[in-house]
């Protein structure tokens, strides 16, 4: 549609001003800090060029936290979407109370993270946790001896909790797409003699491909920036098993409990984080690019 320049400017101005002044400007300024060796206190800034980045590339812990983040992104993502798809199918199989179930599955998304981390710590507790109690009651010795929060297992246990939190969100997005698919497509598939699995892959997935793309991009951004849940899960200090890039950034720059004050370095981590978001989103767009099916 043709529109006056004035209108465009008028409509864009308030959002752009706020976004520009209070978000972009400080973000750009922050990137400048990444070229300095700076604790953040006073005028102790020393310009060191790209040294922070050189250090970062050689920093084992950074790669470890990136690996953890990628695990949440890839492994967590695959499971979240598989579960969301299964639930979509289950909820659309004609069961009663579809809306109620859907609403309940989404519920964790509205609860403060600290409540959820406390709860999961109780679920996993090796002496009075619910899993242990349950396993003991049913005589499942292997399960009752499994220590969910031991250093070897804690990452996966936290990942399970993260998946549980996220499934509802993406379930709703996917269901939104599926609900819009006209019934005739399914009928046609049945005529062709397709079974449920075939119908799912040949009809459902292609027809909600655009929704799926949006959902995957949103999940990826959230997973790459993840901070709160693993940070709050482990009581006082965060063990390296739970480091994500976001947590590493925070620990380096804001030393919650320890006086680590490397603001310049932390900022460099932030820049890398933004870069990885951009790269992942671009890759996803490329991978998921298909002709959108219109109906």
């Amino acid at each position, binding site marked *: 549609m*043709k529109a006056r320049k004035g209108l465009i400017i008028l409509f864009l101005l308030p959002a752009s001003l706020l976004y520009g002044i209070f978000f972009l400007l400080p973000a750009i300024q922050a990137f400048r800090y990444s070229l300095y060796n700076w604790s953040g206190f006073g005028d102790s800034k020393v310009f060191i060029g790209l040294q922070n980045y050189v250090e970062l590339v050689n920093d084992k812990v950074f790669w470890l936290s990136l690996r953890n983040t990628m695990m949440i992104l890839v492994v967590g993502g695959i499971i979240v979407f598989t579960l969301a798809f299964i639930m979509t199918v289950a909820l659309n199989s004609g069961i009663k109370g579809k809306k109620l179930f859907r609403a309940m599955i989404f519920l964790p998304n509205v*609860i403060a993270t600290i409540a959820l981390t406390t709860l999961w710590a109780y679920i996993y507790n090796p002496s009075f946790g619910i899993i242990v109690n349950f396993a003991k009651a049913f005589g499942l010795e292997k399960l009752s001896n499994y220590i969910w929060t031991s250093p070897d297992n804690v990452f996966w246990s936290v990942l399970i909790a993260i998946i549980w939190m996220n499934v509802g969100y993406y379930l709703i997005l996917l269901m939104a797409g599926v609900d819009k698919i006209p019934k005739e497509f399914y009928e046609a598939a049945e005529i062709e003699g397709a079974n449920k699995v075939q119908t799912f892959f040949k009809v459902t997935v292609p027809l909600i491909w655009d929704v799926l793309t949006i959902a995957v991009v949103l999940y990826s951004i959230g997973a790459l920036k993840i901070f709160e849940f693993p940070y709050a899960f482990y009581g006082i200090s965060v063990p390296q098993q739970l480091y994500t890039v976001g947590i590493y950034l925070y620990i380096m720059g804001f030393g919650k409990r320890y006086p680590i004050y490397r603001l310049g370095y932390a900022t460099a981590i932030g820049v890398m984080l933004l870069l990885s978001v951009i790269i992942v989103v671009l890759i996803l767009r490329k991978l998921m690019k298909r002709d959108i099916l219109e109906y």
Partner: protein
Amino acid sequence: MDTQELNNIKREEAAKKSARKGKRLMWLSRTPSYVFVGIWSLFTVFVILWVGLSSLKSNMQIFKEPWMLPTELHFENFVKAWSVMRFSNYFLNSTLVVLISVVLILVVSAPASYVLSRLKFRGRTLISMIYTAGMGIPYPLLFIPLFVIMASLKLIDNLVGLTIVYVSLSIPFTVYILTGFFSSLPSELEEAAIIDGCKDYQVFTKIMLPLASPGLITAAIFNFIGLWNEYQLALVFINSDENRTISLGLYSLANSMQYTGDWAGLFAGIVIIMVPTIILYIFLSEKMIAGITMGASK
């Protein structure tokens, strides 16, 4: 018989067949569905109930009998959280800041999203991309530079300042959602409106905005939930007790456990912070989901 008719017949047969098969297999085939979503949902409900029940226990019972019902109801946990820990104050602050923020977020984001999704002009893609990029920026990066900006505007430790920060930082996500909604609206509407003599801005206010209202509601709810639980930015920009938000209050409470050990009080705080979002969600979840349905299928 042409293909069309043949297909129709096939379809009818298939429908009949599936209806018969459906009746017979209905319960059998749906049982796994019920079990799966049922267990999952029950677990979530259990979680909420557990948090709620824990908030009525004594400190001792929380740890000694975490999975039992409270032996006696300790409502004083709530009294303590609400008045001694001043959650009543924090609650009011949060309500004010979050509601005003959500309104302002929509007021500034809706026109921008409309322009970015429906009007053609040079630089549109670039501007869209700049907005989207904001979603990838981790907040901790902003703490110090944004603090300097806010300090120079004398907006530190101030609910107005916090509102401005909330509004500005919520714009990328909101624009991302809303552009989805606006572009899902059929273009014939605008053309018809123009032909009917609507001015360009009227197309937005009279036609597009009402049509996109499910999207606005969705964006409002997402922002409400997000900001209600937000504490990182509040931690940076709020100092004094009278300006604390409820999630910041909860965060501080959790952080002081090492000296106070008052877990019952913490659970009461968690319930207080949880109630508004859950109520809101119960009443509005259908609208929110309806909104997503519309926007997601752009």
